């Protein structure tokens, strides 16, 4: 049968410098340029306050939790899926962790560790459920995660009777939520950076990442090439859930509250960051690094607008415009690139090699 020959994943190892790999590198670069330009503009407008240690620290802190969610979301979107449930899973995991930490008692690292295990387990459970429903039951990811968005928040409200829990142990709040690892470097940002680096390595340097791209490019081709597509999809959603659970614990440390009413926009903000960062919502293309930059852009814009005294409602308008414009530019370039390389279009090798170069 010809099927065996059509989609060899080995091809990804070769094809070192296709046009797309250069383009992909350019993509991450352009978003980075946009970020740098934005920062430069605000620095010029508010030279004495914008680029200060305190402000940078604030921006980084405010991006940290989104970045943890963004890593998982990038994987899910690269498979061609979506995860709307991250905000609710975050809340649910925070609630479970809070309850268990209170039951365990104490304010120290031991309690935090117990909370960590609880948060990760809760997140993982929701992620596995999402994954199984998407991969095995073949329910579209949008519907599955819309369902778990609602259900996870509902369970959180049942457990708490709708009242936010505020019993985060002191260590979690003072050392992780608001602490510094050295000098003025916030712990929460370092933790988030570690997650991001793990995400980058996992996506661009491992078989796990390669399969993720493969499924998003062409699931059938992946299957014929020997990728266990269903199992891998479950793993990807489980990974996203695990990170949402982890974010739940960080959130508890940062806000000292389970923020039950406060996460309704979180999945959309994270998806916006992923899209601005150059990950295709059709799957197969994307990078974790781009996502992090993409998450920084709205937060830097908001911060800068507040400092320059822009009426609050303008912030939403501009963030929306930036999102659409960046994705449009990306689309134009991809269309051109596809036209240019039309003669040889092996989806697997294209995205595989593109991702490798794009990661730097």
């Amino acid at each position, binding site marked *: 049968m010809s099927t065996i020959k059509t989609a060899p994943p080995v091809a990804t190892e070769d094809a070192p410098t296709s046009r797309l790999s250069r383009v992909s590198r350019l993509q991450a670069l352009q978003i980075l340029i946009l970020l740098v330009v934005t920062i430069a*503009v605000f620095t010029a407008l508010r030279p004495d306050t914008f680029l200060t240690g305190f402000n940078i620290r604030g921006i980084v802190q405010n991006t940290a939790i989104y970045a943890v969610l963004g890593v998982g979301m990038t994987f899910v979107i690269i498979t061609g899926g979506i995860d709307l449930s991250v905000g609710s899973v975050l809340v649910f995991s925070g609630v479970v962790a809070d309850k268990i930490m209170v039951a365990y008692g104490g304010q120290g690292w031991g309690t935090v560790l117990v909370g960590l295990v609880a948060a990760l387990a809760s997140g993982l459970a929701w992620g596995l459920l999402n994954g199984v429903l998407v991969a095995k039951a073949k329910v579209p990811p949008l519907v599955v995660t819309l369902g778990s968005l609602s259900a996870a928040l509902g369970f959180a409200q049942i457990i708490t009777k709708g*009242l*936010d829990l505020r019993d985060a142990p002191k260590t979690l709040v003072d050392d992780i939520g608001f602490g510094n690892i050295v000098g003025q470097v916030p712990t929460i940002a370092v933790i988030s950076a570690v997650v991001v680096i793990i995400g980058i390595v996992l996506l661009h340097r491992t078989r796990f990442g390669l399969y993720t791209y493969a499924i998003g490019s062409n699931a059938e081709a992946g299957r014929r090439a020997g990728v266990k597509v269903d199992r891998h999809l479950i793993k990807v959603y489980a990974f996203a859930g695990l990170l949402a659970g982890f974010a739940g614990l960080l959130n508890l440390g940062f806000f000292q509250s389970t923020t039950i009413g*406060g996460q309704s926009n979180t999945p959309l903000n994270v998806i916006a960051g992923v899209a601005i960062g150059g990950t295709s919502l059709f799957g197969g293309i994307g990078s974790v690094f781009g996502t992090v930059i993409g998450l920084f852009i709205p937060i830097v814009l908001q911060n800068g607008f507040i*400092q320059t005294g822009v009426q*609050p409602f303008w912030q939403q308008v501009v963030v929306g415009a930036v999102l659409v414009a960046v994705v449009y530019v990306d689309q134009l370039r991809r269309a051109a690139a596809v036209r240019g390389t039309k003669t040889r279009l092996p989806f697997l090798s294209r995205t595989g090699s593109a991702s490798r170069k794009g990661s730097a």
Partner: protein
Amino acid sequence: MKRKSTAIVAALAAVALGAAACGSDSDGGGSSAGGAKDGYKLAFVQGVAGDAFYITMECGIKEEAAKEGATVTTQGAQKFDPTLQTPVLQSVIASKPDAILIAPTDVSAMQQPIAQAKAQGIKIVLVDTTLNDPSVAVSAISSDNTAGGKAAFEAIQKLAPNGGKVLGVGVQPGISTTDARDKGFGDAAKADSKFTYLGVQYSQNDPAKAASIVSAALQKDPDIVGIFASNLFSAQGSATGIRQAGKQGKVNVVGFDAGPEQIKALQDGTVQALIAQQPGDIGVQGVQQAIKALKGESNEANIQTGSTIITKDNLTSAEGQAAAYKASC
């Protein structure tokens, strides 16, 4: 193609710049005019942007600040939510104002971020809402919300003298002001044997949710005589819920606050009474306390302002007109 996309990136930057520029203009150039030599630079962080209560407070703040020669910048998040207010506050702190007047959106979640502001040497005044530990602020100014809740029950007593079931529609637990209102209302209702208190349901500040709570509550207890909706959105939603259930005229809604929509609802008869706070007064006193602190004078740690009951009868009077909130300064 490369050139084209570069151009678009440049255009985006221009859009951002343009918005920044025109935004400052439409804001009355508040921050850009901050160079006045003796004028203190004040910042006001609203609980939520675009709410008549906070706009009226902002008017009071601006008026009083102008008298003192101080400049004011106002910022607020899109929802009454600590996860959204924290980044707004952090940006405001970074812009280095002399004092911040803030309405914290959560008694505990906003504690640390506000403590950070104090650590930067900024004087804090809490307006309207407060914190678990208000000692980070030089002064906390708010309505006497317990008395306000009690006044709401008194309004229901007058509207439904025969008694019956009463329900509270709250925002979400953990907001000091609405908690106190709900408590004031609940305590007063429990003290009167003619009335049965059904407790508080929380709308999460979502009018649609308040509407569904009220229509469901009316399914369960069709004989409810009074509903106390402890903030703007809850009252809007409660009125909708009563319309859904076809109970207009049978259920008395007492709203808290007196924004333009509330006044309209009162005129239309969907809401029978309003408890108006004095946000303008809170703003004025907030600025006075901030300036005192900046000048090194002693502060009053706690200031409570009063409230007014507005019904159809006194709406057109001078008292009623003064109590109504403003949609713009």
